[in-house]
């Protein structure tokens, strides 16, 4: 009797608290969803901000001009002479074309303002044209030339309404000229190939991301080639061979510690060792890669050890039992099974290295470099450094380029992380 009443009480208790428990359950779930929504909202705000600021950098204002490759003005009498082709005054024939387009402009000052409609780098594209096709000499051709960044900013901020335009750096005359060009369809926004094919420049309309992308690529290659094999070898030794004693414990503590050391310290280390002691040049991807390898090694060792640990001991025992040597056991069984985990950890480490700026500052990779690096020994910057340098520039047109460079970096990171997921899915084996 007593027992049943107690039972009843227990059920009552359960029933009474049931509602509260369901509510708590729902709340708990809601917290999780709220956390994800918050994260997503931040991401959406970040992306919209970057994309809305940066998308216009992929277009560039160009001016249509009838340019005459006048051999007298260019001072070229022999098109096969490359020295003459290099040294000719291409900006001069652009100036002549501008004077022809706006014949009523007179006076030295006005002419100077007129010349500033077209980028001062536009002459180089004419040089390329003439080198590719020497028969152009003496002919008049219509070409689209890159406009100056002030014009570019004006056109982009103008949209369809001249009232909205940013005129801060434009004179009334320049505005009138630009409007006249627009009316005659001699001014257009075209795809900005320069942004993807050239190195840094102090003129926004000539600045591109390729130098920084190549710099990042070379640095990353050095990092991968060095840190992955070394990291995996260290992890295999520590997991499979090393005896458990004070020394290995000490090493383990140190590795975990190094993973948390601020990256600038690795930069200082690189400066002292590679540049100070080994006397390598400053600003080269080789040194950058070495420094970043030091930085990513602990991450790779830790994730590789975790992956090796996750391989069940039965597999090792089976291999050893069938007469495999320890090396065969590791190479034929443990490593292939641990590979997906090791790769994931490594790729996350490399993605981190790709976004690193602080250590590069110490070894001189934060620099103005125009030429596109052709190897690990050429001076170079990296993508995040380029973003930092552009964000600091006074010219307005660099604002959109900064955002565009961030988009390129994000694309890099997303593809690396996708690769990590794909590799894991592909190589994963269940037992």
């Amino acid at each position, binding site marked *: 009797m007593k027992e049943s009443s107690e039972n009843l009480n227990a059920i009552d208790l359960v029933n009474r608290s049931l509602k509260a428990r369901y509510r708590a359950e729902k709340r708990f779930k809601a917290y999780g969803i709220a956390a994800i929504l918050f994260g997503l909202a931040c991401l959406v705000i970040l992306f919209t901000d970057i994309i809305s600021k940066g998308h216009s950098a992929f277009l560039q204002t160009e001016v249509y001009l009838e340019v005459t490759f006048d051999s007298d003005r260019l001072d070229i009498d022999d098109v096969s002479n490359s020295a003459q082709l290099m040294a000719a005054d291409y900006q001069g024939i652009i100036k002549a074309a501008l004077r022809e387009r706006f014949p009523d402009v007179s006076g030295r000052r006005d002419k100077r303002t007129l010349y500033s409609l077209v980028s001062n780098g536009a002459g180089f594209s004419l040089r390329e044209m003439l080198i590719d096709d020497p028969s152009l000499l003496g002919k008049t051709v219509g070409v689209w030339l890159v406009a100056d960044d002030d014009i570019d900013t004006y056109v982009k901020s103008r949209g369809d309404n001249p009232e909205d335009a940013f005129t801060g750096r434009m004179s009334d005359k320049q505005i009138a000229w630009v409007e006249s060009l627009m009316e005659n369809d001699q001014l257009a926004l075209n795809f900005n190939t320069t942004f993807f094919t050239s190195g840094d420049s102090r003129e926004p309309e000539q600045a591109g991301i390729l130098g920084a992308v190549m710099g990042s690529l070379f640095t990353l290659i050095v990092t991968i080639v060095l840190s992955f094999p070394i990291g995996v070898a260290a992890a295999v030794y520590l997991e499979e061979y090393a005896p458990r004693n004070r020394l290995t414990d000490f090493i383990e503590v140190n590795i975990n510690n190094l993973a948390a050391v601020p990256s600038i310290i690795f930069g200082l280390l690189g400066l002292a060792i590679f540049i100070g002691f080994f006397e390598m040049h*400053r600003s080269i991807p080789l040194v950058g890669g070495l420094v970043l390898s030091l930085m990513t090694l602990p991450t790779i060792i830790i994730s590789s050890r975790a992956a090796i640990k996750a391989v069940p001991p039965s597999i090792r025992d089976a291999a050893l039992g069938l007469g495999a040597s320890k090396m065969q056991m590791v190479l034929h069984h443990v490593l292939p099974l641990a590979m997906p985990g090791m790769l994931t950890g490594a790729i996350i480490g490399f993605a981190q290295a790709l976004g690193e700026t602080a250590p590069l500052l110490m070894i001189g990779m934060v620099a*103005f470099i125009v*030429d596109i690096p052709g190897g690990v020994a050429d001076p170079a910057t990296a993508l995040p450094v380029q973003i930092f340098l552009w964000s600091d520039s006074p010219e307005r047109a660099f604002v959109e380029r900064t955002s565009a460079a961030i988009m390129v970096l994000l694309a890099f990171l997303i593809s690396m992380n996708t690769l990590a997921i794909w590799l894991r899915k592909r190589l994963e084996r269940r037992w």
Partner: protein
Amino acid sequence: MKKPMILAALTMTYALTSGVAHAARDYINVVGSSTVYPFSTVVAERFGKSTPFKTPKVESTGSGGGLKLFCQGVGIQFPDITNASRRIKESEVSMCAENGVKDIIEVLIGFDGIVIGNAASVDKMELTRKDLFLALAKEVPNPDGSNTLVANPYKTWKDVNPALPNRAIEVLGPPPTSGTRDAFAELALEGGCKKFDWIGDLKNQSKAADKAGDKAKAKQLKNRYKSICHTVREDGPYIEAGENDNLIVQKLNANKNALGIFGFSFLDQNIDQIQGASIDGQDPTFDTISDGSYPVSRPLYFYVKKAHIGVIPGISEYLAEFTSEKAFGEEGYLTEKGMIPLNEEKRDEIATTVAEQKTL
């Protein structure tokens, strides 16, 4: 079977790295001041595009950091040129000499003016360096005239100087990390600070102590002088507005009461929106800065290692480009980027220095 492969790989790695470490450098390596950086990079870019040489590499390390790197020695692993927004110090010359860097060519390229200004739609300010010091220093001489310091009591410009308008002191300027801020403190604040005899005396005393051989006392006096003259108040009227001068210009438009501190190039490019205050009776213009009568301007230099000319290709051509009329001349492309050119006589002198490679 695999051993030869490993050996080969090792040898290759060694050959590659040692090759890299000792390969000749075929591009010019420039380091130094962030103020000169925008001008130096423009020249480097044009030089790279118009000559067969590679584009020089320009690093912005600050004047002091640049000279330190520059003075480390002669050899391809050390920079060839360093930019500086001040003259090289005696101590730096001797540090260079100790490391074997003996022949240094000094090139003065132009001036950089620092402007204090407000929105174009309000009255122009007429300031003196003393006004600026009293308005912006953390501690100022006691208004009762005694030789003591008090925390800055001034709230409005009229408090500082009865001739000035009755407006709250509100100045937007760069943070302490900025070179512009250092130069402003040194040229404007210290310039006003020295006008108080007893503070100016501290510096003389320090020099006297140094001569007498009392280094510790000299240092102590010098530090005291510096801390009085260079410390900016932190109680509100001085607002750190970040390193972006564009932002300061925008804020001046929104807040008509405020003044801002920025580089001359920003005044030049936004002359429709902002105006520069006159300092000690001099308006900030191209001419007053270039002849030195506007007090808050500083010279821009770069220094070249003579031993590297002929070793690293293109150095003398780079110097020629930098000191050509089309670059640092009155209508050169550097003035378009906001540098104040030297006068013609001075430019000729510099051009000969460079042509003859005269050393310090």
